[in-house]
């Protein structure tokens, strides 16, 4: 097996159920299934895109993978180690290997800390090297994210930076501990187009230079197409289609992916786009084990869809879809 083909992240049957208490006196509890039976494998150096609409559970997946939240069920192996079992020293090591970049650089940076302090903090927490070593690493990280010359940025506060520069600081902070795996949750959705392109290119270049793997969470399929090697499409907590980017976008199998793709606006007034029908109905309570999760919105459902929840089936090489009908067609 080549180094590149090694599985870095292996997510098996990930499930997260939140319980909602109506009020402190009520006994009956309501449950919300945010993520249900999600299986993902990410290889070394791979960019895996998790695409879905708001409320689909994509952020919850990212938070569980970074151990910001505990899963209700399922296993997550990173480099072969079940991360749910990590404690103490090992957990510390995990936090060094797995880093996160968040959506809003206005909120994810401490407004009272300078760029130098912000980027150095993870090194201090991880007790990496002595002060000189840390200084050198901070310098190097700022250079890598193209905040150049680093000296100009070290002593600035977040309010003295633009949105794009702030997101670069957030990236530097994630990279300074030299992780293998970065979870990027909508890292560019707050940025303007001209700035966004720069951050996307930076993340792509870093993958090439440092061999990083990403879980790239986004609602924007055009961005996912630009960034990712493979894409998983998630709908109401369930992975409905997964495949190589070009195949998934060029030849989607699941009706939800089709609807999603046909709704993406195209920056070209001459482009004609065929719209895939999508039923706009309110979603009833989720019934994951009984019927297809997409049933209430599906324009092409059959009888079996009401009775059984479809499994992920390989529809072509390395391309999976969870739809009773897409395998028949």
């Amino acid at each position: 097996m080549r180094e590149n083909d090694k599985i870095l992240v292996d997510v098996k049957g990930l499930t997260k159920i939140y319980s909602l208490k109506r009020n402190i006196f009520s006994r009956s509890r309501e449950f919300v299934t945010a993520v249900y039976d999600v299986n993902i494998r990410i290889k070394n150096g791979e960019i895996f895109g998790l695409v879905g609409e708001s409320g689909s559970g994509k952020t919850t997946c990212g938070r569980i993978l970074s151990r910001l939240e505990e899963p209700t069920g399922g296993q997550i192996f990173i480099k072969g180690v079940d991360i749910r079992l990590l404690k103490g020293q090992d957990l510390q090591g995990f936090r060094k290997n797995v880093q996160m970049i968040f959506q809003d650089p206005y909120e994810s940076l401490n407004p009272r800390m300078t760029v130098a302090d912000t980027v150095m903090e993870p090194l201090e927490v991880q007790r990496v090297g002595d002060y000189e070593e840390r200084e050198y690493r901070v310098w190097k990280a700022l250079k890598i994210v193209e905040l150049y010359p680093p000296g100009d940025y070290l002593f600035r506060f977040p309010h003295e930076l633009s949105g794009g520069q702030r997101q670069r600081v957030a990236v530097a902070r994630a990279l300074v501990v030299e992780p293998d795996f970065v979870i990027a949750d909508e890292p560019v959705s707050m940025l303007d187009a001209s700035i966004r392109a720069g951050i996307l290119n930076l993340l792509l270049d870093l993958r090439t230079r440092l061999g990083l793997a990403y879980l790239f969470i986004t609602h924007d399929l055009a961005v996912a197409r630009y960034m990712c090697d493979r894409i998983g499409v998630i709908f109401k907590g369930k992975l409905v289609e997964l495949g190589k980017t070009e195949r998934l976008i060029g030849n989607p199998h699941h009706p939800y992916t089709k609807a999603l793709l046909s709704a993406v606006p195209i920056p070209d007034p001459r482009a004609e786009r065929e719209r895939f029908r999508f039923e706009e109905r309110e979603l009833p309570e989720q019934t994951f084990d009984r019927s297809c999760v997409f049933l209430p919105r599906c324009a092409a459902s059959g009888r079996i869809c009401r009775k059984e929840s479809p499994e992920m089936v390989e529809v072509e090489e390395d391309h999976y879809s969870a739809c009773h009908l897409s395998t028949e067609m």
Partner: protein
Amino acid sequence: MSLLEIRNLTLHYKTTKGMVQAVDKVSFSLNRGESMGLVGESGCGKTSVAMGIMKILPTNAVIIGGEILFKGEDILLKDDEEIRRIRWKGISMVFQAAMNALNPVISVGDQIVEAIQAHGRVSEADAWEQVRELYSLVGLDPGRRKSYPHEYSGGMKQRAIIAMSLACSPDLIIADEPTTALDVIMQDQIIQEIVALQDRLDMAMVYISHDISVIAETCSKIGVMYAGKIVEYADADSLFYDTLHPYTKALLSSYPSIKGEIKRLNPIPGEPPNLLDPPVGCRFDPRCPEREEICNSHEPEYLEVKEGHFVACHFVKPA
């Protein structure tokens, strides 16, 4: 006569740090039934232009000069009472956050009825009948008209807002990022709805968005704004296929698409200028790949270089 004509609109905001030169000599015109897109990044002044047209500017805004002619009359010279008569009937607006502006304790239908009755002598029964029609027009179930805002999804609320904006059959509708808060499928449905209604009711529309792909799908004419100025204005096809201004070119090559080959995106280096103290020459000069000496000292004129195609750049001149 154009339905809407803006001439040299210049608008500043008074702040503790000085005057923010938010809109600078913006001119464009719009005929009945036409749709125009205003596209630009955050802070480029596109919403200020929209608020100027509706005369709903914040109190620290100062109109330095220019005219906003609606049916030949300058909106900026009208008093509050006259403006009130134009709003809704003449010009109405759909905002980005409008769906959050619905009153949570009054049913959506009642709120629309209120708007209808405020602008004409209509009986309560007739107003409700109009609400019913408006609901089917925008694709909402008329049976839901007495529901409260919290019983609607985000997309339904935005549809209700669109219904409300159409309540008094305006000649011009201003849509300021009407779909930005929505998911892609909902966005697509609302956009289709807006385009279809605009066409069917023969309204003029100014559609404002930061997303050039949304503008490409909704508008026949497009104005590109940068740092308070319109830098290029043309019909949609020319703007995309005969792009003349360096900023427009850069903007177009910074968008990924779901179609076509994957090309490396070109970010625009640097940041938009601080409008407290904008560059003396061309406002795009500090970031422009084609800049020359003249650009940082002289402001380029906004000229019609081809029929209906306006550009403000020293290196794009009329044939």
